[in-house]
């Protein structure tokens, strides 16, 4: 037996380190990109507080681009992790918060929160959380008791999504509220509303959730062996499932209340990373956090660079990449 298999701890550290470097590079690129364009050197000066930095571009970099990059990284991390967790728990490679309708459910909750005049945190986040938990319960109820659990879950998700879309449109046409004026943008995933204070709160709430999910990463491995086998290897299935589903939908609804439902992010990174680093969730969880963050920052850069004028919602880019991947995976899983 060859002895060159690196231990799991080493693998986690190596993968995390590599992806952190990637995130750093993409993040730096993100901070350097924008309509007012101020080359890499100016960005570096602003970041290290060099005296040659001019105050105008330093302000843009610190107050507009930096928070935006951090927000993108947090959203990407959350959604990738959400996809990973749903795929493991539901044993379905196509599961993802957006596709299952969980994002749509939190969007309804968020809009209700906005219309009731709540502040983004904790008010809107909590109504969004309520919406996502309600859709999750609805989904599990609708799809349980079917023999073809995998397909019925996706179908339920499609229906929940369509229903959520209708409710959102209904709410929008019933109110002429100015608070909803840029809701269309928000509905496709909008990262432009970032200010440093709010992002600080978001990070403080999300980081413990990441930690909690990492704690259950080995249980997710064991769950892949089948429920009964996992149980007879000491996994408390009900406890693990509830903890993971609630944490995940909480994180997803937080990001939805900040920047709307961004689709398909939870599909791209987990699949790509599984191909490269294998199926072990103890490496996949940190990899999805850091790699998913990098992916979202990259998509956000594209959404700022591609349009001739202004920008497009980041969700447009993620859907352009993710939807074809979904179709490919669906075709493959049908075989």
């Amino acid at each position, binding site marked *: 037996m060859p002895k060159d298999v690196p231990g799991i701890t080493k693998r986690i550290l190596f993968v995390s380190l590599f992806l952190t470097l990637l995130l750093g590079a993409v993040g730096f690129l993100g901070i350097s990109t924008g309509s007012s364009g101020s080359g890499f050197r100016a960005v570096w000066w602003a970041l290290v507080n060099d005296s040659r930095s001019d105050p105008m571009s330093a302000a843009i970099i610190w107050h507009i681009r930096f928070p935006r990059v951090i927000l993108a990284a947090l959203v990407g991390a959350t959604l990738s992790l959400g996809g990973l967790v749903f795929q493991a728990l539901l044993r379905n490679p196509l599961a993802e918060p957006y596709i299952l309708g969980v994002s749509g459910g939190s969007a309804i909750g968020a809009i209700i929160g906005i219309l009731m005049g709540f502040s983004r945190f904790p008010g809107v986040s909590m109504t969004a959380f309520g919406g996502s938990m309600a859709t999750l319960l609805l989904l599990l109820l609708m799809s349980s008791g079917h023999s073809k659990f995998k397909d019925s879950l996706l179908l339920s998700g499609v229906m929940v999504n369509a229903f959520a879309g209708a409710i959102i449109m209904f709410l929008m046409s019933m109110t002429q509220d100015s608070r909803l004026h840029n809701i269309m943008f928000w509905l496709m995933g909008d990262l432009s509303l970032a200010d440093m204070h709010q992002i600080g709160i978001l990070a403080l709430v999300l980081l413990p959730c990441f930690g909690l999910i990492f704690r259950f990463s*080995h249980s997710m*491995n064991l769950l*892949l062996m*089948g*429920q009964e*086998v996992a*149980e007879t*290897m000491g996994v408390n299935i009900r406890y693990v499932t509830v903890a993971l589903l609630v944490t995940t939908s909480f994180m997803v609804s937080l990001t939805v209340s900040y920047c709307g439902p961004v689709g398909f992010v939870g599909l791209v990174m987990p699949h790509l990373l599984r191909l490269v680093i294998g199926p072990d969730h103890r490496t996949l969880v940190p990899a999805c956090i850091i790699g998913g963050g990098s992916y979202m920052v990259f998509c956000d850069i594209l959404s700022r660079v591609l349009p001739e004028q202004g920008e497009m919602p980041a969700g447009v880019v993620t859907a352009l990449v993710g939807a074809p991947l979904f179709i490919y995976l669906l075709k493959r899983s049908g075989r």
Partner: protein
Amino acid sequence: MKSALAVHDVSYAYGTTSILKNISFSVQKGSFYIIIGPNGSGKTTLMKIMAGSGKFEKGAVEIMDRPCGQYSRRELARTIAFVPQNIPDDFSFTVREVVLMGRSPHQGVLGLERKEDGKILKKAMAFTGIEHLAHRKIDQLSGGERQRVFIARAICQEPRIILLDEPTAALDLAHQVRIMDLMEQLKNEKGVTVIMVSHDINLAAMYGDRLLLLKEGRIVSQGPAGEVLTFETLEKAYGCLLLVDESPLGAFPRVTPVPHKLNLEI
């Protein structure tokens, strides 16, 4: 009487359909115990209850002379290991990684590998003859190989009892005998109690120290193969014509189904 596992008067119903009715039996420590019976007789439900993952309405289950309710999940996992009938093949863990998972009830939450885990893993893989497959992925293995990987994983749990749900169902003859021999060896060398659900009456007759025959959730007969596998009880349980004689291989019965086209009447 020291029993590894004892079931006292257990009943279970799914809705209004009764699946198990007043089941009582006990399995002696270090024995090979095989549960047989026709389809839908409640074998798998009984298996789940013994594995601690199935519910039951009435009765009690004792494991190593302790009520199973007194065990924590992890403690139970260090006492009983389970090999399922349908082994999942939709993930790409390597054989080594899967076998190592059997150590998790002895490890911390993250399942980090310690030195002794490596030793136990190696022994389990040698025992089941899968060392050469260590770095192959599960989804590239044949059914028989996958079965042995899952058995090695169960052995890694260092259980006192191993439960197997129809482990030979989808295997060719050579693999069937290999799995049964492996269990016999596990019983003799490590003193592990083996409890198996099987469809194969003849394998059960050859290997089982004691058999339990179930039909429609009730016990038809239990005891050594020679007592359980009689013409009368088998006909009652399976409802078809069978020939029961002594096997030319030794002092145990051989059961042969009698095809209709022979037009034999009793």
